[in-house]
């Protein structure tokens, strides 16, 4: 098995175990490149990649850019914080213009669920989902899994708790699908107003008491809590959120001994996580950032050269 089953990466819900395995194994190879003095391989020489960002993003965009540069690809960036609708040009027109510029691969971030799928329907390039609405963010979940696997040498059988805004998080959705596919046990925890309808149907244990959720877990992956959710009336105050769901050193006692603290960033110190926890010896938050490049290099490499291929 040295080929992915799809020529796009739209989400992890449909991605089979063998594909995830292949991406993570390939990422191990690229991880070594990042530590070299000359952090560059000629793998994607002559391949043109567009980073199409309809939402503001710093770290995901930079991570993809670095991954692309390290693979010697040619890069163009298209960033706009306004949606295509407001701008007046439809997404299809934008994409067809891009297609006419002979782009081979597109990394897309968009505020609407399904926008990456829409792209696959109007162009031949390989599409990589860099986050669509509250739907999926597959490369983030892959780098989270890479980081966990790197430490424990396995994913199967581990207990992973995802804490935060379950309702609006694409990172959580991709993590749920990926972790479950790889045989991990997944628990979700957040305020009841941020748990989406019938969330149990994901096949996860669901908690509103963070102490219960952490009991016996190996990994805690903490999501950023966004201020606008509080303004939207979904929880009373940041203070109360921190009291009920903030990850403190005290709460870590419930975890397994060799526990791991993760956060996709950017972190709100003192809100969803204390500095003590974020900077503690079991935190891999910065490793996640480094590993993200390797995982994205692996995805780009594995999907490249398959432009226009029939599904």
């Amino acid at each position: 098995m040295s080929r992915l089953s799809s020529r796009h990466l739209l989400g992890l819900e449909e991605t089979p175990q063998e594909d995830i395995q292949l991406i993570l194994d390939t990422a191990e190879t690229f991880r070594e490149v990042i530590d070299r003095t000359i952090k560059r391989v000629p793998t994607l020489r002559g391949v043109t990649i567009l980073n199409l960002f309809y939402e503001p993003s710093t770290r995901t965009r930079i991570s993809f850019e670095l991954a692309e540069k390290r693979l010697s690809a040619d890069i163009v960036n298209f960033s706009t914080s306004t949606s295509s609708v407001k701008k007046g040009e439809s997404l299809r027109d934008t994409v067809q213009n891009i297609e006419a510029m002979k782009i081979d691969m597109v990394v897309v971030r968009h505020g609407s669920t399904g926008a990456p799928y829409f792209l696959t329907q109007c162009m031949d390039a390989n599409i990589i989902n860099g986050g669509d609405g509250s739907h999926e963010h597959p490369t983030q979940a892959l780098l989270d899994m890479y980081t966990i696997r790197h430490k424990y040498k396995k994913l199967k059988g581990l207990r992973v708790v995802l804490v935060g805004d379950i309702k609006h998080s694409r990172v959580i959705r991709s993590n749920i699908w990926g972790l479950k596919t790889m045989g991990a046990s997944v628990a979700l925890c957040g305020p009841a107003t941020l748990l989406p309808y019938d969330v149990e149907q994901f096949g996860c244990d669901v908690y509103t008491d963070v102490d219960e959720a952490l009991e016996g877990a190996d990994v805690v992956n903490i999501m950023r809590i966004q201020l606008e959710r509080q303004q939207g009336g979904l929880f009373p105050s940041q203070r109360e959120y921190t009291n009920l769901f903030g990850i403190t050193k005290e709460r870590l006692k419930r975890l397994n001994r060799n526990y791991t603290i993760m956060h996709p960033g950017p972190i709100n110190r003192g809100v969803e996580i204390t500095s003590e926890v974020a900077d503690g010896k079991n935190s891999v938050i910065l490793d996640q950032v480094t590993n993200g490049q390797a995982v994205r290099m692996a995805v780009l490499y594995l999907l490249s050269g398959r432009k226009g291929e029939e599904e």
Partner: protein
Amino acid sequence: MPSKKYDLVISNGRVIDPALGFGKDAHVFIKDGLIKKIEVDSVAIRKELKSFDTSQIIDATDKLVVPGLIDIHVHLREPGREGAETIDSGCRAAAAGGFTSVCCMPNTTPRIDNQETVKFVQDRAKTASARVYVVGAITKNIEGKQLAEIGDLVKMGAVAITDDGNYVQDPNMMRRALEYAKMFDIPVMQHAEDKYLCDGGVMNESFQSTRLGLKGAPPAAEEIAVLRDLALCRLTKSRLHIQHVSTKGAVDAIRQAKAEGIRVTAEVTPHHLILTDDEIGKEFNTNLRVNPPIRTESDREAVVAGLVDGTIDCIASDHAPHTDEDKDCEFDVAPPGMVGLETTVGLIKTFLIDKGYLSWADAIRKMTYDPARTLGPPGGSLSDGTPADITIIDPEKRWTVNAAKFLSRSKNSPFVGYKLTGKVYKTIMNGKVVFE
């Protein structure tokens, strides 16, 4: 020599008229645009038919001959959005779908909240291939703030009022509308979705919205709206009509209200009878974006059961044309609505009649007599002396829904590519063939 006594005969069809309780093979005789008589086959009749010129006979062997169908929920978009539909194109689509009468919704630009706009629509409809009955606005500019001049609208011929597209959110405003409409004995049609609970939802709130990370509108948004209006209807003793019922809770509430004697009627669309929200994640087809949203299987089963047991009176399409440009976009920014006039008959035959939920007579009743009874437009029957509005259906014709063949200006149907059984063969209005 052609017959002088009659202009046209529709011969040998299976004539179904639920209003008359008629369901036999028969011949329908038409003169001066009116139905003159319906006769079962006999030696004498066969002899009489010999006096007809072949151009005066429509052979309806193996076809169904039914009263011209009535759709009480149609958006014709003119004035204001002629790119999506005009009164003319919408009525051609209606004729193609077997509908000889449509009730048009007032959310045009300008709104149908004044006599001039009613008159404009009526003038445009004079040459159209279907009858157009205007449903006026409840409130000025359908904003829910001040009653429209409903007396004026009724005087011009409005058959009902609605702010369709918007729910009359203020209960006191809805109470006044019900009371005021009672003076004219017209029903108030409600688009029952509480906007605060919908909260900008773009699909049904269920595990599917959870899975896709799309904002969901809960079934409770419809149920609360319906329950509130039923309470107001009980209070005012007025006539209430619930548009496009989509949830089990709403069906149950209406069933109970009817048992109590509350004057409520209801409609359901083919898409709520057939589709469920697990379709959305397959291709993010924006033609599946509709308000109220398509729901879960248990809701779908409940609206089917409600239609079958009479809780829901009418089948109505909520024909809502949008241009390709407006629909070719991301799912959550697409405007809600889908076209329906040209697919209703095939969908009802394929998904309700062939699956044993309804007989042809039941289905025809819910598209003729019951809509006429609900909103009061004339028609819905083949009684002698009434205008010859007749739909002839080929019940076993197999066809594939092809948007390029729609007569509607818009193609936004989620049923494109569906293989259906049952198609309109000819549509006759005032004794003239308006579609074949």
